[in-house]
Every structure is written in structure tokens, then in C-alpha cells.
């Protein structure tokens, strides 16, 4: 390979430098920087070769297959069904929950599942509880249920930026204060994953990802090869998840499916006020059919309730405009570029 480029760059910039700076730029010639010591190049490289291991081919295969294997979760498979409805992220939106139950029934879903994150963002957390129970919804815990039922100090959403965490903390404090202890206990009683048969396919239902409850699977940040590995490890024909708030579906080269089912608690940052959920049904060829469905609901009543509860106006604007105003820093570049704020 040519090493001309950096040397040229150095030579070019040297014209503007004093003698001391030139010393600094050339100090490393023929040397390696071992921590803060300067040593002959070979000394460093030889020392490095003493560390680490160099497995033979058979050992490498063994190491990789050990890494890729996972113990079976041994949970009972529910179903079989021909058609199920799945959603996540209620975020206290009882209007959205009513709408999804009605829509799913109208479309002939035999079972309805919720992938967690009951609370946060919206008003009056207790209102969704009777709806969830009466609807006989198969729930799993999200990070919200885990945190609320264990009395944790935060939602463990997994944000990294202080701007995201600021609003996440407001949501969590509100929900933690306004949900009854009995409801919180009930939240903690749900499993962390479920397996459901639809036609011939076995679907694994999780909150964030099969690996971590608060892992964000955004479309532009989730490699197809990674998903194939996950499905191999889990022995499933499809993985259904939520947590990000943005729905997507990918049919993998292996023919298996990954569906981020969307959330019914707030719109998908696309300037539309509706929310999204997913319908999965058995195709006539034994395949899995996946539909991502937009769901209009009474968002104006939701916004009015939020104002009555003094929730941040930023949240209300999201409900009324369809654009996210908070928790934006976690978005990958692609999804961020598509947002208004």
C-alpha cells in the first residue's frame, strides 16, 4: 500500500510550523508509542505478539459455535392461531388501546398481544388496566413494567443523551406516582418473552430484542446478518419486538421475518397523528403474512387529558402533530434525518 498520503500531508502542513512543532511531528519516526514510552517499533510489535491467542481452525470453529449457541428458553408455545394482532408501547394511551382492540377484532384477530411499555408519556396510567384485563391481552414486560414493578428509580429506557433522559425522567415520575401499587404488581407478573404459533411458524415475542429488554432495534441500525444470527440462536421463524416507537418489517434472505410491531401510544414521527400496530396471519403457502397497520384514534381527547394532567406541552405537540419533540437523540442518523425536530 502507498504511504505517501500522510507524509505529503505532513510535509504540506510543515510549512506553517515552528521547529518545536516539527520535532513533535517527526518524533515517532521508526518508533512505537507503548503507553507513554517511545520504543523501537519491533519491540512493541514483538511484545504484542506475546499477548492474545492464535487458535487453530478447529478451535476457532469451536469458539464460534460456543459463542453462537444459546440454551433453549423452554417456554411453552401458545396457539396455533391463524391470525394475531400485536402492538407495543401503550404509553398510557387508553384511547389508542380502545381503538386497537376494536380494529383487531374487526379484522378477525384470534388473539391480541402487547409487547410492553404500558406507561410513560401519556396521562392517567390506571385507565388502561381494565382494558388490558377485559381484552385478555397476552402481555410481556417492557423495561417500564420491569422498572415500575421493582420500584426502580428510572425507566431504564436506555437513552444516552441528557436531553433524552430529561423528558424520560418526567414521564417515569408521573407514571410511577399515578399508577397504583396493585397495578404495578400486576405489570411485574407478565413474562419477559412468549412464543406463539401462527400457522406453521413459531414467533418469538420480546420487548426490545431477544438479547436485552432495552435494546433498540431501529431499521437503519439493525444489520440483516445480525438478525439471522438472532433467529438461529433463538430457534424461531420470526422475532416480534417494539421499544423504539418506529415500526418496520424485514423478510430475511433465509425467509424468516423480523417485525418491529410499532407502538399505539404515540405517532411514528412522520407528521401523521395515527399510530401503528401489526397483524400477522398464516399465508396459504404455509408462509407468514405481515401487515403494518396505521390506526387512527381519538388523539384530540388524549391531548386534552394530557394538558389537564399538566404533562409537558412538548408531549402534547407530538400527539397533535405526529412529530416527535423529545427522545430524539437516540435516533440513528437515517431516522433522525427524517424527523422535523
Amino acid at each position, binding site marked *: 500500500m502507498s504511504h505517501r*498520503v500522510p*507524509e505529503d500531508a505532513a510535509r504540506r502542513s510543515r510549512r506553517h510550523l515552528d521547529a518545536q512543532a516539527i520535532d513533535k511531528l517527526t518524533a*515517532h519516526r521508526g518508533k*512505537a*508509542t507503548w503507553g507513554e514510552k517511545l520504543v523501537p517499533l519491533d519491540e512493541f510489535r514483538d511484545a504484542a505478539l506475546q*499477548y492474545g491467542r492464535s487458535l487453530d481452525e478447529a478451535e476457532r470453529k469451536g469458539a464460534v459455535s460456543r459463542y453462537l449457541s444459546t440454551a433453549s428458553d423452554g417456554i411453552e408455545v401458545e396457539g396455533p392461531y391463524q391470525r394475531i394482532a400485536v402492538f407495543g408501547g401503550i404509553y398510557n394511551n387508553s384511547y389508542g388501546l380502545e381503538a386497537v382492540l376494536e380494529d383487531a377484532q374487526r379484522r378477525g384477530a384470534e388473539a391480541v398481544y402487547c409487547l410492553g411499555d404500558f406507561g410513560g408519556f401519556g396521562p392517567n396510567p390506571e385507565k388502561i388496566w381494565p382494558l388490558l384485563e377485559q381484552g385478555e391481552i397476552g402481555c410481556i414486560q417492557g423495561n417500564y413494567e420491569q422498572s415500575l414493578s421493582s420500584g426502580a428509580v428510572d425507566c431504564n429506557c436506555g437513552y444516552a443523551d441528557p436531553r433524552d433522559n430529561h423528558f424520560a425522567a418526567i414521564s417515569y415520575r408521573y407514571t410511577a406516582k399515578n399508577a397504583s401499587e396493585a397495578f404495578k404488581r400486576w405489570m411485574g407478573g407478565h413474562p419477559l418473552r412468549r412464543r406463539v404459533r401462527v400457522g406453521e411458524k413459531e414467533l418469538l415475542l420480546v420487548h426490545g430484542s431477544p438479547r436485552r429488554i432495552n435494546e433498540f432495534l431501529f431499521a437503519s441500525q*439493525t444489520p440483516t446478518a*445480525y438478525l439471522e444470527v438472532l433467529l438461529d440462536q433463538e430457534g424461531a421463524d420470526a422475532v416480534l419486538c417494539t421499544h423504539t416507537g418506529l415500526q418496520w418489517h424485514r423478510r430475511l434472505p433465509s425467509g424468516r421475518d423480523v417485525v418491529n410491531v410499532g407502538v399505539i401510544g404515540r405517532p411514528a414521527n412522520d407528521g401523521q397523528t395515527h399510530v401503528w400496530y401489526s397483524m400477522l396471519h398464516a399465508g396459504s403457502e404455509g408462509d407468514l403474512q405481515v401487515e403494518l397497520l396505521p390506526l387512527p384514534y381519538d388523539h384530540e381527547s388524549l391531548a386534552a387529558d394530557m394538558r389537564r394532567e399538566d404533562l409537558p406541552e412538548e408531549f402534547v405537540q407530538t400527539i397533535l402533530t405526529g412529530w416527535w419533540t423529545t427522545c430524539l437523540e437516540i435516533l440513528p442518523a437515517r431516522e433522525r434525518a427524517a424527523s422535523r425536530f
Partner: protein
Amino acid sequence: MSLLTPAVDRPSRTRRAVPRVELRSLDTLWFQVAGTVCNLACSHCFISCSPTNRTHEFLSLETVKQHLDEATRLGVKEYYFTGGEPFLHPDMEAILEATLEVGPATVLTNGLLLDPQRCARLAAMAERSEYSFDLRLSMDGYDAATNDPIRGTGTFERIMEGARNAHAAGVNPVLTVTEVHSENSTPAGRDRFFDLLRELGIEHPRLKILPVFQLGAQAERRGAYESWQRLAAGDVDDGSWEHLQCSSCRMVTDQGVWVCPILVNEPEGRMGETLADTLDSFPLGHPACWTCHVHGVSCKT
């Protein structure tokens, strides 16, 4: 801190075993794509990069592709490129093109080589990929008076120029700032960096703050670690190392595969030749591990 603490602590620390971190899952793969070769020689660079530092050399396109192949079989989620200065590499754009076919990619750059043409090509490449592409742009002070003594005379203006060019092409860079000045990470300090980006017309400014490691050039400047700054077994509940990036990352250099982006100038950081060699645990015996633990550092965005 109580004056008594180190005295009580030190002997017992040296006796206790070094804790080991398991690889929970290999999510993030780093490439030391430009080795330790840089067109700057910043006074806080923890791996002392410079135009003549060849401790690690450039990675060839071929080597990158081999590791990408292995990485896709292991289900790696994201790829990061650093150096030195990655855009000194003559094949950098071909490397990114190959990477963006299999997953999201981020380049850590000092911004000096972000001319309008390159930014336009990068933006077009990002557009073609189904995965996200990010640029991380390093800066160490919000004006020339605070930045240039660290990064070099005239660099503040050139970094701003790089940010302007990236933004004009449609790439929103993540400004990456170290705590080399302690005020950089305060709310007021952060606001000043946000304002800088807004002045360039960037509506959604993005910022990443990193601590400094007392290694390399920074150690020459401010002194190395003290002997008590080391992790010992029992510092963290067993197995609870998820906050350390080495529980989910590895780093490829031309000298092999290393545990993380931080220890590449420490021979003990090397773990093997291929990713398969490095799927076991790593002993957290280096003082930099103490910084990671105390600050909860992650080099990824």
C-alpha cells in the same frame, strides 16, 4: 476523598485478583483503519498519533473485508472507524462502501479532510445504503483560544469548515468533545457547543462527550495514572460489567484484534488474530480500565 482511603486501600488492592470481563455479545466492531497515523498531533491524544507514528499501520481494504466477513457470521451490529485520521487512507471510501452493505458505519474524524467534494461523495454513499452512516467530528474547545492549544494552530477554523461542508452535503456530524477542559461537559459548556453548530445552520446539533485517558500524549502532558487507579475483584458485583464497552466490542488493527479502542498502544490489549480468537474474557488490569469503570465510558455514539 478521605486521606485515609488510599493508604488503607492500596495494599489490599494489589493482593486482590484482577477482575475479568466476559464478552456478552460482539455488537460493535472497531477498525483502527488509519493506524496511529494522523495529520495532527494533539497534545491529549491517548495513543499519541502523529504523521510519523506507525505503531499501527493502515488497514488494507482486503483485511477490512476479511474481518467484515467474519463479523457478519458472528452477528456484529455496528462498525466504527478510527485512527489516526481515517480520511488519510486512500481506500477509505471503498472501505465504507463495503461496510455499509452489511451494517451501519461511523467514522471518527478530525474534520481537516472534509472538503465539499468528499462530503458530497459520503452523503451519496449514505443515501445508497439501507443502514445509517455517521461522522464524528472531534473538537476540544468552543473557540480557537481553547481548542487550538490542544489540537494545533488554526485547527478550530478548519474543524468548523469541515462541519460546514458535512452539513451542506446533508450529513449531520456528531461533535465529539473530550473533557480536556472540565467545563466542556457542564450544561453551559454543552450549550456553547450546540450554539456553535446552530451558527452553522445545523438545526439538530449532536454532541458526544468523552473523558480523557491518562495515556500516550496526554500522560506526557498531565502525568500517568497513579498506582491506586486500578480495578480489583469486588469493585463491581460479579459479572455486572455491562457498562464497559469491552463486554460488547473488539478492535481490529493491522497487528491483530484488540480488546477495545483504548488499549491499542498497550501490548496486553491484544487478544488474537481473528475475531474467533477473541470471544473469551479479558482481564481488566490496566489503569485505563479504572477510568472506564468510574466514568462509564463508551467510545461509540
